[in-house]
């Protein structure tokens, strides 16, 4: 599904990445452990996390993650938003919990990083 549809499904706020709203995302991972993201096949996936540190963006850069969703309506520090913008990684803030955010995207037919539903 398109990134714009993910933003709609989550009633989310796009913090940066307006130019990537047509990007197609098929896989989704949710973790606060960056090593789990680095260990999985996470290229072009969407990553849901409760963390708001610069390490989330660096992990996304290293692993090739397509977009990052911060859950629980958290707003990351400005330097994190700036880094995501500089690196061309869309950053989205979801008002829902990790569980509800995942459930909404699962209902939209996104699959997990291992390809399972």
């Amino acid at each position, binding site marked *: 599904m398109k990134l714009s549809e993910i933003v709609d499904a989550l009633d989310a706020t796009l913090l940066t990445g307006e130019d990537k709203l047509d990007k197609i995302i098929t896989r989704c991972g949710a973790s606060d452990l960056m090593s789990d993201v*680095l260990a999985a096949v996470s290229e072009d996936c969407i990553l849901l996390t409760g963390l708001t540190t*610069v*390490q989330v963006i660096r992990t996304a850069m*290293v692993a090739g993650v397509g977009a990052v969703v911060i859950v629980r309506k958290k707003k990351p520090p400005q330097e994190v938003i700036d880094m995501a913008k500089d690196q061309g990684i869309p950053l989205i803030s979801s008002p829902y919990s990790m569980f509800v955010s995942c459930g909404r995207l699962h209902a939209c037919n996104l699959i997990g990083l291992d390809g399972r539903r």
Partner: protein
Amino acid sequence: MRAILLGLTEDADLPLVKVRLARLTAQSGNFKPMPQLKKSFHIKGRDFIRAGEASINVQNLLKSMDFDPRLIRRVAICGYESEMNVVMHGGDGTLSIEVDNDKLILEITDDGPGIEDIELAMQAGYSTANDDHREMGFGAGMGLPNMKKNSDQIQVESPPNDGTVVRMIFFIPDKGKSD
């Protein structure tokens, strides 16, 4: 000195033989070796804001040299995990990348306290990290296992109170270079 060499199988040894053959051929004048290069980047201990910059620099360098994206990703993941280990546990350190004929060599050294039990540290889930590390999403005991998984060879040396050296080798796929 405690040292451990992992991931070496008979098959994994074959490319090493190829390297030696390539060098012999080079000496005889019939072989044009790939340009060799070595670059090093500083890692500042306990600087969690800048942690990862050295690995991103290596990633950008390899991208500019047009290596296979999957190979770059593996190198970047290993560099990043290793860099986080240095920042969390090791004090100051250096991350270096070397392009050598048919392989990339990633070496991370630090002047920290060393790893007490390397074999234990290689086990998934074993961690000596604290809550601060975990709040950043690291310290789950997956660093060294992730590095082993993503490299073709890994060697860890950690003599007591004399820092740690992690050396990883990645063989360049035949079509890894587009020139």
